[in-house]
Every structure is written in C-alpha cells, then in structure tokens.
C-alpha cells in the first residue's frame, strides 16, 4: 500500500491531501480532482510500462485499487525476474 500511496501522492497538487484519505475512500469524493486523476493514471502506466485498459482506468478509484493494480504486476515481474535468474 505504501508504494501506491507514493504513486498517488506524486500526482497531487497538495500531497498532504492523501493523509486524509483512507485506503478504501473514493479518491474524487475525497477531493482529488480530474486533472490529478489523469496524472495518477499516467503514473500507473509509467510504473507498469504499458497502457491501461479501459476497465483498469475505470477502476482506479481508491488507494487499494491502485495498489492492487501496481502490486499485482510488481509481484508478477519479480517472479519473472527470479525465473530468469
């Protein structure tokens, strides 16, 4: 969850806003604006190294959802690296 919070925070105009947002709180209902959501999505794409699908974009609405997206892929990537090793 920490990694997801860092990613979201880097997309916010006022990073302290995230301190008031719980893992399951809706980001926009908590004060994140549409421009910031766009940057969060962009940050996710850069982290994953691929474009997000329409469903993945629509599901980016909580800290937990962002974590599930980027951590699931990180786990897969780590496993792949171990397999190569």
């Amino acid at each position: 969850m920490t990694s997801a919070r860092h990613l979201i925070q880097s997309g916010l105009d006022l990073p302290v806003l995230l301190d008031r947002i719980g893992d399951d709180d809706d980001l926009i209902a908590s004060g994140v604006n549409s421009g910031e959501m766009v940057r969060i999505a962009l940050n996710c794409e850069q982290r994953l190294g691929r474009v997000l699908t329409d469903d993945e974009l629509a599901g980016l609405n909580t800290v937990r959802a962002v974590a599930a997206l980027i951590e699931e892929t990180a786990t897969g990537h780590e496993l792949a690296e171990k397999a190569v090793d």
Partner: protein
Amino acid sequence: MNRPAAPGVIQAGRAGRAGLAGLAGAIGRFVLTPAEHARYDTDAASAARWLQLAEPEITALADAGLPHLTDSRHGPLFDYTDLVNTAMFCGSGQSVPELALRFLLRFAVSPAETWYEPRKWLVGMRLPEVPGPERDRPLIRVRVPDLSADGVAEVPEAEQDGFIPPAGTEPIARGYQLVVQLSGAPGTLADRRVRAVWTEVVGALASGEVIYQTVPESLRMAHQQAWQLGMADCIVVSRLLAERIRKLGLPARARRGYLLGLVGSDHAWCEVHEGGRWQPLDAVFAFAAAGGAPDRNLRVDAPAFAEACYGGRFNRLLPCTADDAAPLVYFGERPAPGWALAGISARPWQSA
C-alpha cells in the same frame, strides 16, 4: 528498476513539460477565441495548476502573442479556452487535456460488446470551489442526469447505500451522487440525407477545414459562428448536426451530458428520431476514431467504432436534462468556466 515503456506509454515524470517553444508553437494551430467571446481572467498560476504546465512558460506566452490583459497584481490574464487549446496543440502529449481525452477514448479500442453491455456507474458531481471571499461567490447550479432517456435506468438497490438520484429536471444548487445503469445498443440510420450531412461534418473535421478544439461556452451557443470561424468541439458539432438534420424535416436534437470513464467529462452528441426511437450520432468520436488529429496524439485507430458512432448508443454516455446541449454548470446566470467541471467523477459500481 526502470523498464522500457511499451508503445503508447508517455514518459514524463509529471504531465506538461512542453517548454516555451512547444507552447508558443501552438499559437496559430488553433483558432483563437474572438475578443467578444473571450474572458481574460485566468492568471498563470491558476492555469499552471489546472493544466499542469510550468507557470513561467505560461507567463511567457504573453510575449509570444497569446491574447491577454495585463494586470498589475496578477500579471498577464489569459482566456482559459485559449490556454486549454495551447496545451492541446503544443504537441507534448502530456498536458492534462490531452491525456484526459486519450484516456476517455480508450474504450473505443475495446471489444465491441463492451460498448453496449449494461454497466452500472456511480456518478458524482461535487460543486466546484470558487476562490475569493464567500460574499462574492456566485450561486452554483448544476444540471441533473436525464433518467428517462433511452438506455438509462435507476438502480433502486443503490438507494440503500445513500445514492439518491436528484429529483426533477431543473438545475440544482448542490452536488449529488447517484448510481445509474447504462445500456448501449448498436444501430444505424437508414435515411441517406442524414448520412450526407454526417459525411460533410465529419469530413470538415478530418480535413482540418474546421479545427476540432475547445470552444468558449458563449460561442458554443452560437454554433454557426463557431463553425464559420473554423472551430468546433462536440457541442458545436452536435448543435450543428441537429440543426441541419431538422432542416431536412427530420426530428433531431443536441444532447449533452457526461462521458464516463477514468473521470467524467462534459460531452455532447446529436440524436435523430428514426424507427420509433432516438438514435445517437457522435461525430467527434467518429472523427477521433477514424484518424483524428495525430499531431495532437488524439488518433484512435478504431474504424469499427467510428462506424458505430453513426446510430449506436454507448454504455458510458449519460445525458443530462439540457435542452439543445445547454451548459451543465452555472455560476449565477452565466455558464461556469471549464475548470468547474473537474468535480465530476465516475466509476463502475457494484452492490455491497
């Protein structure tokens, strides 16, 4: 660990690093807001925040020729629409307006069945925060979703979770959250005269004869003037299509509401009554999906979707009760500026 990006992934730590040369290069690539429709009230600091561009580069646009007024306290004041277009046309692919549109159109490259299948959406409208002393703040009113429209259904079980749809059809002075089910439907129109009008309008956008860009609200309502000036957005196009089709003696109307996805976005389309039902025509989606504007990273390579825009209804367009594509948010009696729509949110909804 850094990994090379896949095609289509934008490499920038933060959106909007166009540089002055890039920003200034956008001037001349779009039609500037005519002075009689311009509101020179946006300072560089506000624009930098909303558009994610660097403040000094915005300030420098004044010397580069972007129309403005000079305020002794705030520096140059620009028209917000001109700034949005500067961001859209600077070619960085990184400004918030460019990115938002690209993300919102990503559904066009999804399998066709996903355009139509019933989807439940949680839609929220948070009233914008207007800076300045409270006594000077205008009454803010927003239009409400049209729950009687084809393909739109209320979700009664969501009311248990507190998502009560706003009642009535008139604008309300509060935000709201509601859950709706949107069902799309493939379709096409049989009348060849409609196809001729459609082809002409989409063709004008595709050829660049008319530039697809952001248009100020007052000019949207003067859609013929905008079109003659060579500028159009979805609202201008929807009103123009409806007007031209009505002149053929056919029932047609411009609709306006929200395109739902990563965020909610103000969008408009035309509807023609044929075969006992209203059928949508979305010329701007068709333009983007059939080639669009590659120089602005707006190209979506989806010819099947482009054709589906001629009569098909999509499961992420929520119409509001806005006759003839009237504005969705008001400050007092005036249409609100574009940034006021940042409080629209949307996400798929599942019952708890």
